[in-house]
């Protein structure tokens, strides 16, 4: 059974088609890597999954529930979108940590706000908040930052900030965790620590990763999708796509990368 099914997703900005008939599905615990040159539509696809962009066509199905259908997208209220979003987590290229909160507060914030909707919040407020705190602290130590919990984002290195962002996305236990070029904004010597953390998560979590790190994509992904000009050119087992690409465009792209 697949956790995520993407069917016929299409998206245009003004008159430019950025995504054309995108289809894929993802099983539980699987990792999908999306590769392709800049402007190929990878990031837009990820943003569509997270409801930051609204596709013009197609469906997004999570755990057999149709979360998005372009046919009746207009009828969706903001509240519904908010709930649907929680199926997905997103780690941004530029981290987007909240600068006025410590690492720990960044991870806790959304959970604390959501907890207010719980029926037992008033009676068990203290308990709930301390649970959230412990959970956030354990996530931060999972990404190797137990020593840095009380520091503010500007006091952390780029790699550490991105690891906080990963912990923050994990805090809401999304069904599918998305990464948008998580190491592109980092100095080369800092990418390793972030990739290690993502690799560690790949075993248990269902993930979609947009990346320019080809070696990493090859190691971590169960399926690789190569996109170009808004279409999926080639998809399949990473060894196949990287080792023996069938399409000319994939070959050209990979050659440019290996040089």
């Amino acid at each position, binding site marked *: 059974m697949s956790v995520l099914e993407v069917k016929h997703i299409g998206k245009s900005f003004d008159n430019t088609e950025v995504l054309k008939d995108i289809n894929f599905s993802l099983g539980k615990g699987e990792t999908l890597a999306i590769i392709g040159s800049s402007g190929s539509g990878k990031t837009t696809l990820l943003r569509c999954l997270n409801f930051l962009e609204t596709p013009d066509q197609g469906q997004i199905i999570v755990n057999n529930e149709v979360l998005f259908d372009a046919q009746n997208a207009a009828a969706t209220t903001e509240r519904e979108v908010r709930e649907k979003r929680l199926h997905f987590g997103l780690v941004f290229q530029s981290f987007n940590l909240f600068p006025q909160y410590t690492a720990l507060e960044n991870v806790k914030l959304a959970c604390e*706000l959501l907890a207010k909707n719980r029926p037992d919040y008033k009676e068990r407020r203290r308990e709930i908040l301390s649970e959230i705190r412990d959970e956030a602290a354990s996530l931060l130590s999972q990404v190797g930052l137990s020593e840095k919990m009380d520091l503010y984002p500007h006091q952390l290195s780029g790699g550490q900030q991105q690891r906080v962002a990963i912990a923050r996305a994990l805090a809401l236990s999304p069904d599918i965790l998305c990464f948008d070029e998580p190491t592109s904004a980092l100095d080369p010597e800092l990418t390793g620590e972030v990739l290690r953390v993502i690799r560690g998560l790949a075993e248990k979590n269902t993930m979609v990763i947009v990346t320019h790190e080809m070696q990493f994509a090859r190691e971590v992904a169960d399926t690789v999708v190569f996109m170009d000009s808004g279409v999926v050119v080639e998809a399949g087992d990473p060894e196949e796509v990287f080792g023996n690409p069938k399409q000319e465009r994939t070959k050209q792209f990979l050659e440019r990368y290996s040089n």
Partner: protein
Amino acid sequence: MFLTVIESLNEGFLKTLELFALTLLGALPLGLLLSFCTMSKFRPVKYLMKFIVWVVRGTPLMLQLIVIYYCPGMLLGNNWWGGGTAGRFIATVVAFVINYSCYFSEIYRGGIEGVPRGQYEAGQVLGMTKTQIFFRVTLLQLIKRIVPPMGNEIITLVKDTSLARVISVYEIIWSGQAFIKSSGLVWPLFFTGVYYLVFNGLLTLVFGGVEKKLSFFRV
């Protein structure tokens, strides 16, 4: 004599402070409202607002004071600000609030537009409501961004209150100048500068304090 002068200057300065405080009270919230209008997606509101800001920032406050005080009377035949000191003061406050809310609206706009898109998006993907994003994520960043330009503008306001004397509001410059005619004394007028200096010194300390308070994070 010295005590008489000081007493009179104090009285004038109280009027100055009153005008200053009432202007802030009106212009700080009104400015925020106007900045939302300037950023409105509804074009007519946006362009009307931009036009108003252009006129208000493009003409001298002194002229605006005169126009706002005299025009209703000239057009309607009776001065609906009401005669006397009180009426002049109300007209002055109205003119100052309009003028300063336009300046403030531009400062707010700069602050709001300065918060990176990614901050809103990060809040959105974490399932926060628009209100939660505003109060829990962007507000403090916005405040941090606008404190320095606001400080500047507010200090200018303290000095601009002296323009009110053009329609005979008895603020401190007026009080100082009065001694030239009545007693042939020039120094009281010069001495009013000390009041402005001290008060602006205090404001500078306050704004410095706020900036320091917000220095625990960077935007």
